[in-house]
């Protein structure tokens, strides 16, 4: 079996390289699901033993400079991914979750664990981001535990790219021009790049009740109609700006690439691969008059980029760069910003896991996203919804935020989201 990878997949190799240079871990995503159901272990093993799961487990990534796009190939069907059992006896399940490594020169780019913690059962799905994006990883994990009843080959494997290379080049030129608008600007981020390798990584989670979530959504609607992501990003950026000011940083610019799922709506396909492009948001000190003005500014930036089709164009640029050596891609993406990818990483998974099926024998009782542990810029915030409750996963390093800074950041973020006065 052989098929082409896309530019967004190849971008993950660049992120992998950057994360290995700066930190302890590669570009690995994790999803923890608290589950309830009958004969869980046997069900999961059966699914892992399915032809589809084994095919994905057997795929190896190949980069082929200039001649053609990179591709996936499975020359032989490997044994199924083992389901490892783990008992966690400490006070917190989050602190003791496995974070294994992956070798991109080999296949076997996902791992599964069944975890027991205080008489409760959890399924941990760990994957290299090259194989699935967050949405794809989530869908495949739900299939493996049996919460999604079936996936067929057409749902899982992506089609080969169709766009003509001339159109790709025009899009790529437009995308480069957009990214270079403020060429040379200094981007302020949380962590000092040097020493990041030794920095310990912390994952924290913020969960809001249904009533609190309704209050947050009402506040968001009072500030900006139609969309919630710019409000979430505005709250986060405001707290981040206050963090910089408390450090007495004479900051000049915040830069936030925000991933956008490019799958057509109403469909889960394709599960495999990365199908994300990015919106890019810039904020400068003068933009921070109040929270409402920041939210409206971000919404205007979003509308401008929808009009200009920047996500489609950036995806085209990634497709072209998939044929080039990584250093060239690295130079183009970080060139305009003096080597900084982002002030912090932000994403909003929307409603993707809000209402799990739960009509099968397996039920998902709770879910936690663990985004890849980016040690630089050292702060990642993921907004998601689960059963109509807003959840935040916050990953930070000791280099990016001290314990007291984190506590202040979290408190302020909670207040910014909830309180009418802020």
């Amino acid at each position, binding site marked *: 079996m052989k098929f082409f990878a896309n530019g967004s997949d190849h971008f993950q190799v660049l992120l992998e390289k950057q994360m290995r240079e700066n930190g302890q871990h590669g570009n690995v995503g994790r999803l923890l699901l608290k589950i309830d159901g009958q004969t869980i272990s046997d069900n999961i093993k059966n699914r892992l033993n399915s032809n589809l799961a084994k095919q994905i487990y057997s795929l190896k990534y190949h980069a082929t400079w200039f001649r053609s796009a990179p591709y996936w190939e499975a020359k032989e069907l490997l044994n199924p991914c083992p389901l490892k059992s783990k008992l966690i006896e400490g006070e917190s399940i989050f602190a003791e979750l496995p974070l294994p490594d992956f070798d991109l020169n080999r296949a076997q780019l996902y791992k599964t664990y069944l975890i027991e913690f205080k008489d409760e059962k959890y399924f941990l799905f760990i994957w290299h981001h090259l194989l699935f994006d967050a949405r794809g990883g989530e869908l495949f994990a739900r299939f493996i535990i049996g919460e999604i009843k079936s996936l067929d080959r057409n749902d899982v494997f992506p089609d080969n790219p169709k766009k003509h290379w001339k159109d790709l080049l025009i899009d790529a030129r437009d995308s480069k021009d957009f990214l270079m608008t403020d060429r040379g600007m200094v981007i302020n981020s949380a962590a000092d790049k040097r020493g990041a390798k030794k920095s310990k990584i912390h994952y924290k989670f913020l969960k809001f009740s249904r009533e609190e979530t309704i209050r947050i959504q009402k506040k968001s609607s009072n500030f900006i109609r139609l969309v919630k992501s710019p409000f979430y990003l505005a709250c986060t950026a405001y707290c981040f700006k206050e963090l910089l000011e408390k450090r007495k940083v004479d900051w000049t610019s915040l830069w936030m690439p925000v991933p*956008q799922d490019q799958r057509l*709506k109403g469909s889960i396909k394709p599960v495999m691969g990365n199908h994300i492009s990015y919106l890019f948001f810039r904020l400068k000190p003068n933009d921070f008059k109040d929270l409402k003005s920041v939210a409206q500014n971000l919404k205007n930036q979003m509308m401008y980029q929808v009009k200009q089709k920047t996500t489609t164009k950036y995806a085209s640029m990634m497709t072209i760069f998939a044929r080039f050596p990584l250093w060239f891609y690295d130079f183009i993406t970080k060139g305009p910003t003096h080597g900084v990818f982002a002030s912090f990483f932000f994403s909003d998974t*929307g409603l993707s896991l809000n209402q799990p099926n739960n009509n099968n024998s397996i039920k998902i009782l709770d879910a936690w996203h663990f985004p890849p542990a980016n040690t630089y810029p050292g702060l990642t915030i993921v907004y998601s919804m689960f059963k109509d409750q807003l959840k935040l996963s916050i990953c930070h390093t000791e280099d990016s935020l001290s314990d007291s800074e984190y506590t202040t950041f979290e408190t302020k973020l909670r207040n910014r989201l909830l309180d009418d006065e802020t």
Partner: protein
Amino acid sequence: MDLKIIESELCNFIKENLVAENIDILPETDLAVLGLDSFSLIEIVLFLERKFEIELPDEVLTTENVRTAKNISACAFAESQKN
């Protein structure tokens, strides 16, 4: 301008640009259930503004008004009558 034409044009736009091939879009289809996100809703608003040369002000874009193609079309129709 006819409300039915707006509904029909909008359903076609959603079907051809935003949702998977096998999804049917009716004026009453709940767009959130289909997974239409913020980005898609902005595309819808921009499509209506361009196509029918109207401006949909922020205050009309309430959750209920953007729930279905029928509701959004009604807003677009109402705005067109003001011009």
